[in-house]
């Protein structure tokens, strides 16, 4: 992606004039202006600076483009510590800045696992040094992600962990999950589940079906998702815990969440762009870049994800950024690591929901900003007085083609290479500072 990221720009008052303001939290979609002062938004509105902006303020003329809260990406793997050859907090932050992401929440499945306070402190310190996109962190729900003993949920919450999860593994043991849900409830924190019955999914390389049969690959039956979700929902009902399903991808799973919400359960879920933009045909003739976890699904499931997003069953869209290097992907399909480098494709691919008429622009932006912030209880994703000055300026109609080689991320493993998209990030502002500007 062309452009520059900058860690040390100045932070005086800046006026963003001539903008199409998009604030999904209030439904604002109007021509207007916004002014930041230091790390916060000082004022915003359609009527702001109708005359002319005050002197002594830096002016950014938005030229009628969209100014929205920066994206809040609630599912990112930054690979640091442990796998710095795939991504680091620095390289991931640059990629996020280039993608219009102003806050991201990373998973604890690093090496060592983030299951204690010192792990959280390490991430926070590295993020402060890098000083681009804001980095938040989930802590492991169980020690070493082994699914057996709870981590220090209370202490970790106090130190800033925004939620608890075993990352890319499901927390399978119902006894442990029950306790995690009840215990976390005391601290008002959310538990995030990778929705997959691990026994049914064992050894599977893709969704089970006609394609897996033809390719001769072991399949994961699609019901592995809904079986995990349904079982968990009974425990949520039992404990009153706060439960969130990550990267939901099947019609049956979405339907379960839809019914649970109707029943009044405190559950939320997110999905990721591959699940509404691609189906398993993307695997073609053993393309490992299309190997994801959960695996790409059939077309009916893809359509159900779009429906779930449109009707609000699916609260948020996360990038599910999972950078992998060549060595992890240039191997036979069954041996390849799953995942896609996704921070920079999050906005343009999500905007296809708007371009294709499935959702309004405001609704798409909601799934990317205030909605994920609300899931984890962060006061982000809003254009409001005294809110953090985290902004993205973008052109939702600018045509482009996703180019894997042009990605800022250390890893270029995107299943969207060559996909024509519309939507371009022009500028990213974090805490009042411009951290990215398109060339």
């Amino acid at each position, binding site marked *: 992606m062309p452009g520059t990221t900058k860690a040390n720009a100045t932070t005086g008052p800046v006026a963003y004039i001539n903008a199409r303001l998009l604030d999904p939290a209030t439904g604002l979609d109007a021509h207007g202006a916004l002014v930041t002062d230091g790390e916060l938004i000082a004022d915003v509105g359609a009527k702001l600076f109708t005359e002319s902006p005050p002197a002594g303020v830096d002016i950014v003329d938005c030229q009628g483009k969209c100014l929205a809260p920066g994206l809040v990406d609630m599912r990112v793997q930054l690979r640091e510590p442990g796998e710095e050859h795939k991504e680091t907090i620095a390289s991931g932050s640059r990629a996020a800045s280039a993608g219009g992401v102003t806050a991201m929440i990373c998973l604890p499945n690093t090496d060592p696992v983030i299951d204690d306070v010192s792990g959280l402190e390490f991430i926070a310190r590295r993020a402060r040094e890098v000083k681009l996109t804001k980095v938040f962190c989930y802590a492991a729900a169980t020690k070493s992600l082994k699914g057996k003993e709870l981590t220090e949920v209370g202490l970790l919450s106090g130190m800033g962990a925004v939620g608890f999860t075993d990352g890319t593994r499901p927390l399978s043991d119902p006894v442990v999950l029950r306790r995690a849900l009840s215990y976390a409830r005391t601290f008002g924190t959310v538990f995030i589940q990778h929705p997959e019955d691990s026994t049914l999914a064992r050894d599977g390389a893709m969704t089970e079906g006609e394609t897996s049969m033809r390719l*001769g690959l072991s399949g994961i039956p699609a019901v592995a998702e809904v079986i995990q979700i349904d079982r968990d929902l009974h425990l949520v009902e039992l404990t009153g815990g706060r439960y969130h399903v990550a990267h939901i991808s099947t019609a049956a799973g979405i339907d379960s969440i839809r019914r649970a919400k109707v029943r009044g359960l405190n559950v939320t879920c997110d999905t990721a762009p591959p699940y509404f933009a691609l189906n398993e045909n993307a695997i073609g003739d*053993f393309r490992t870049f299309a190997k994801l976890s959960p695996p790409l699904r059939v077309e009916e499931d893809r359509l159900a994800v779009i429906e779930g997003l449109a009707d609000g069953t699916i609260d948020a869209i996360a990038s599910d950024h999972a950078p992998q290097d060549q060595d992890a992907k240039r191997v*036979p399909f069954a041996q390849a690591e799953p995942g896609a480098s996704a921070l920079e494709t999050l906005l343009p691919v999500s905007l296809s929901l708007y371009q294709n008429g499935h959702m309004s622009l405001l609704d798409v932006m909601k799934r990317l900003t205030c909605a994920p912030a609300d899931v984890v209880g962060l006061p982000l994703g809003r254009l409001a007085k005294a809110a953090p000055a985290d902004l993205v300026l973008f052109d939702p109609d600018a045509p482009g083609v996703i180019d894997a080689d042009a990605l800022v991320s250390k890893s270029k493993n995107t299943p969207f290479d060559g996909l024509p998209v519309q939507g371009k990030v022009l500028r990213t502002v974090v805490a009042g500072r411009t951290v990215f500007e398109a060339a």
Partner: protein
Amino acid sequence: MNAPPASTDTVFRHRHLLGIQGLSPAEITLLLDRSETYVDQNRQANKKKSLLKGRTIINIFFESSTRTRTSFELAGKRLGADVINMSVSSSAIKKGETLLDTAITLNAMHPDVLVVRHPESGAVKLLAEKVNGSVINAGDGRHEHPTQALLDAVTIRRRKGHLQGLLVAICGDVLHSRVARSNIYLLQTMGARVRVVGPPTLLPDPVARLGVEVFHDMEQGLKGCDIVMMLRLQTERMQGSFVPSIREYFHFFGLTYEKLAAAKDDALIMHPGPMNRGVEIDSEVADDFGRSVIQEQVEMGVAVRMACLDILTRNMATTEAE
């Protein structure tokens, strides 16, 4: 060179032979016809030709195999090529060198043809992307085993005179079988009707989407069949998880004269080998020279592999001439 003239009506358009899927009926016919010419040659005292003189063939097997590797080795040698065999146990691969490193290393030795078997589906294609010569898939995971399907087809055609319109039952562990997949594609492309017969745990759920008829009862499945193709049941699938026991499997799905009676009187019995006698096939049936063509399949294997080497290297000669 005393090479027969290249066929003018049909061209084999592929650099590699990675699978049956994607081959046209004309291309399959070309391979089968060419195989027939080598059957006769292989029955003469002097079996050797110099067609591939100076060519290098490397057989690289990441999974153990005796008959397929020997068959390819003989095929290469009878055509006058230099043949090298490499066995790479999967544990050695895990220790270090990746599949692509192996491919690049072998490629530096300028082999004209690489014959590759690998336990992972898609691995042979991955390797083919990294080499300059031709690659023949000698079996990749559960995906394809094209030369097995071709040798089965030659065997059937020599006995029945044609493939079109025949009714073929493929019986047993279709789920884990690359032989079954390649055979289904080939037989259907050539106009035969295919049935699969086995317990539901050993058939892929969407198998009917391949255009086959599905049976869970041997006698019903074999009824009226011209060909009964048995599949090997891997030892690790026998106990517990896919079928309850060998005894129960043999009772319901082992090929006996009793079950065979449902098929046509002149139905042929085939098996890709190695056989588990008393598991998927009764010894008496397997050894019935009137009906079992299992030995003939092995004989055809060499001829088919000669034909594949012949046709792929002939393509190479054309490109080099250009």
